[in-house]
């Protein structure tokens, strides 16, 4: 059964078509990513699905229910993380999550358990204003999950975090759908979607440009693979190797461009030239560039 069904969803703010005819299904237990640059319509799509806005057009079913207008039957079954600062002022981390737990009639013990699960036990008595960006995000995610919702929405949970904190957060996020929970995540980081998501919808200008698993999207791109080895091969000779499309050299490295990496690697091995070999496949970023024809703006 689909956890979320969206049909031909659209909303406009004045002249701007923020969301313009979006259709997709999200399966139960799926980790689903909505990827796109700022202003692509990700957050608005999320807000429409959550029932915060009324769509101009289209239909939404959330766990079989209509989210608009505010549906009190549905709200205990979903969890939301809007942004790190959506906290009560001047409360400690523990008071914060206990307050959110009380909103859902969840006992204090489970609130404290969640604090432990996101690794904030030693920060329990610190005011949320004094937490680091990564700690504040972990607390926000714990507050969204404290009532064990079947469906959880995370809106750019790693925005404005340093690389170290982002990777810490990925460890926490990657297990969220293990118990059959459905996770919907928006992000403008390609690598994040690639690591975390079962399927990704790439959005721009209020439309979905492509929707598939990250691997399938990259495969569909049919982009060449770059193989670099240390040492200077003879360029003319390398160009004649089977499968090689192009050869380039910079100080100390030779890079071969190919659509048949297995053949090229075997050939290099036969010549005993595999020193310091690195293989670069295409990434979601390449898919995005291909789809939108422009630099991705973070």
């Amino acid at each position, binding site marked *: 059964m689909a956890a979320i069904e969206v049909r031909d969803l659209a909303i406009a703010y004045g002249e701007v078509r923020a969301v313009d005819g979006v259709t997709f299904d999200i399966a139960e237990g799926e980790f689903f990513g909505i990827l796109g640059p700022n202003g692509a319509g990700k957050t608005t799509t999320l807000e429409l699905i959550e029932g*915060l806005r009324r769509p101009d057009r289209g239909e939404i079913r959330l766990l079989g229910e209509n989210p608009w207008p505010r549906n*009190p039957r549905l709200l205990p079954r979903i969890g939301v993380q809007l942004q790190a600062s*959506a906290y009560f*002022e*001047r409360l400690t981390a523990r008071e914060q999550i206990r307050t959110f737990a009380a*909103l859902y009639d969840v006992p204090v013990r489970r609130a404290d358990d969640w604090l432990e699960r996101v690794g904030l036990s030693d920060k329990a008595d610190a005011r949320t204003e004094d937490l680091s960006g990564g700690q504040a995000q972990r607390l926000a995610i714990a507050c969204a999950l404290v009532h064990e919702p079947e469906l959880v929405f995370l809106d750019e949970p790693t925005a404005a975090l340093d690389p170290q904190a982002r990777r810490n957060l990925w460890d926490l996020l990657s297990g969220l759908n293990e118990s059959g929970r459905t996770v919907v995540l928006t992000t403008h980081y390609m690598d994040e979607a690639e690591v975390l998501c079962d399927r990704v919808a790439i959005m721009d200008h209020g439309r979905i440009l492509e929707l598939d698993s990250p691997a399938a999207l990259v495969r569909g791109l049919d982009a060449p693979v770059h193989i670099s080895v240390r040492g200077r091969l003879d360029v003319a000779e390398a160009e004649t190797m089977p499968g090689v499309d192009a050869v380039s050299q910079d100080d100390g490295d030779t890079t071969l461009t190919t659509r048949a990496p297995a053949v090229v690697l075997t050939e290099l091995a036969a010549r005993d030239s595999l020193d310091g070999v690195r293989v670069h496949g295409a990434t979601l970023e390449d898919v995005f560039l291909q789809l939108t024809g422009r630099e991705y703006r973070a």
Partner: protein
Amino acid sequence: MTAFRALSAAMAKGFVRDRASVFFSVVFPLMFLFLFGGVFADQGQSRGDLVQIGAVPLVDDLPAGARDAFDQSFDVSRTTDRAHALEEVRKGDADAAIEMSGSTLVAHYTQTDQVKAAITQGTLQAFVDAANAAAAGAPPAFRFRAVRVEDESLKTIQFVTPGLLGWAVAMSAAFGAAATLQGWRQSKLLRRLQLSPVPTRSIVGARIGVTIGIAMVQMAIFVGLGAAVLGLRLDGTWWMAVPLLVCGTLSFMSIGLLAGAVSKTTEGAVNMANFVVLPMAFLSGSFFPLDGAPGWLQAVSRALPLRHLNDGMLDVMVRGQGWTAALAPMGILLGFTLVLTAVAARLFRWENA
């Protein structure tokens, strides 16, 4: 119920831990209470400084009892240097210089402090009249005694407490509502709560409950400290100040809600609330009585909720009127609340555009 309690606790903690809020809603108004009720109150009319030039038989030959009364009113220094005495008056070091010119007592005064000058003249005139009467040897046909209509023990503190308490409650209620609405909208907490199963009435109810609780604490501190330290006396139907204060709190919250609904930032909301509350406090007689104010100003002040709260509290706490005196102000305050809340609800947006 759990949610309501948790929200109330969160809001109350948020207030108590905000040093600026606590200062401006409790400590700052208390400073005024002590200033008006303690320091200024005992500053009775100080003695006038009088310079006596040469011999003034009228003063010198006063009978012992009259001389005591004279010394209570004036601090007399003697000199024979007339020019120096007049210079002292001109510079304001002395309130008046007196000398005899034949049988006339001449007082030289400066117009700089008109009130002091008038009091000095009136008092001197009274002594001259009394001396005349004594010289005539006739018993006085009329006597004069001044009696205040209020309880004779009534002090300034009785009058300043209700007004300053009203101002303090107006500040905390209006700022609290404005800052909460705008701050929660900015941090998206309002959105987050909208996506939790908590009914809106629990959120609004918790905010109202906490604000009324703060007002009651303010009242307890004001009345308690006033009674313990400043000699405030409570009698009659003073307890009617409690429901009055509840109605007043609601009306000030509606001002804050409107400020929060209209403004775009928390700072803007607080500034706007401040812009309304401080002039309102002046116009409503929180700092000084409005009796001398022109008619149009009185009319303006009657459009302000704090004026009605102050009047009502004065009636039941000071003027000894029955509990029914509080009903009309309470009705006006609630009416004001309804109108302003309706306007705020129309202008309200879930998020900043």
